[in-house]
């Protein structure tokens, strides 16, 4: 098990199985579908869409986020149309009116956190 960087060249560091073609994020040593170890780096994003979101009014179990803060699941499409679901924080200010389901977003590069920026309406 090797620790992988979160981003490579502004894109999420996912892994693509060279045997069955499945893309997984985060990148892991084994493919969960065919158990191959023949995995290559695959960049996801930076554009995606917001599948769903919520706002936390509670402190997180660990981490230093201050409530209320929005986060959501974004879908990033691969070249061959696989939908990869990724959870991340949403960079928005109260009352978070720009955060809407199915809206486009882009990744904000960071070492530790996945953050999404909503595209303008």
């Amino acid at each position: 098990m090797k620790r992988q960087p979160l981003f490579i060249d502004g894109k999420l560091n996912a892994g693509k199985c060279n045997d069955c073609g499945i893309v997984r994020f985060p990148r892991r040593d084994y493919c969960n579908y065919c158990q191959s170890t023949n995995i290559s780096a695959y960049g996801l994003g930076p554009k995606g869409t917001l599948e769903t979101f919520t706002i936390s009014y509670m402190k997180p179990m660990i981490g230093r986020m201050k409530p209320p803060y929005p986060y959501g699941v974004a879908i990033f499409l691969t070249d061959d149309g696989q939908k990869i679901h990724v959870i991340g924080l949403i960079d928005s200010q109260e009352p978070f009116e720009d955060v809407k389901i199915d809206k486009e977003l882009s990744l904000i590069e960071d070492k530790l956190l996945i953050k999404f920026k909503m595209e303008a309406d």
Partner: protein
Amino acid sequence: MRNVAVVGVGVFPFGRHSDLLYQEIGVPAVNDAIEDAGIDRKQIQSCYAGTVSGMGVAHDIINECGMIGIPIVRVENACVSGTNAFRQAWMEIASGLSDISLAIGIEKMKDSSMAAQGGGRIQLEMKAMMKLPIVSTFSIMGLPGYFALAAHRHMNDYNTTKEDLANVTVKSRRNASRNPKAEFQNPMTVDEVLNDKMINPPLTRSQCCPKTDGAAAAILMSEDLAKKYTDTPVWIKASSMTSSYVEEQFKNLISLPNIENAKKAFSMAKLEPKDFFKNGFAEVHDCFSISELLHYEDFGWCKKGEGPKMLNDGIPEIDGDLPINPSGGLLSCGHPLGATGIRQVAEVVYQMRKDKEVAKRQIPDKNLDLALAHTMGSPIMGFTSGIHIFSRDL
């Protein structure tokens, strides 16, 4: 495999028990189950205890109960811990290793942090976790968060309303008002649920199960012995588990991975979801209001998106075609992680037997032939799902 029956059960009231030790809530549940089964405690040949936080608690309980020398195993699998302890006891008997086995579920949560409930692992790994990208990303999300994400998508895709979600809590509290062992026995209106403190939109506090102290126990037996000790054995027709990896949970939030487990369980019991209508009932893992609606859909009891309609039509009510969570479920009984799975089994047994314990919430006889009990766990760290199916006749 041998046939296995549940013959005795016991539940210590769920709630706040800050002044009581683990064994002080566990021993009464175990003693009640032994008395209920009508056995001598010396006959118990093995013990499995489901608990997330209670290191060594099974040994304390067994020592207090006067049983020495039997195998005692603590089982931890997050919210499925109790279900798994029960499954281990079932495996003991089905395999022929034991003829009588004891399953305990126990947890104290009121006065502990999440870290303590996780056996200290979170605290021990904090330094490493904070440097790990993906884990620190998941750490932004509390447990209600995952289900809030599912709820928002469900609302978007199927026009599910806040009121539809609140109705789950309203039904839960209505049933729990007839359950003296539930933590919350006060009925609530839709407005009261919606105006409660906001946790993760659209989920308010009363749509989230509370952290609770509680214990439950069950005695399982082989077919020969069960027939000797009771006229009303409750047979275990299926015991089924699945797991999934972390990312998979976000793939289809409104179709929780319970779907695969339900298929597995129904197949093992040689049943179909529709067989439960006008014939059975269920205790499902309603950790949040949206969860229960998703389970209706994912277990095949209604079409995707029609969970709210099934509830509004009165189907899951105690006198409906398929009563669900007659006890009040996790939302009202509370959710002491390890205890929940065994408390559900106790509800199934009491209902099928028409026991005085459930006199005020008794499901009509026509719906007592089949029952399903289900828990699911750890949706932010990888997912697990446990299901048992029971029948009144072998």
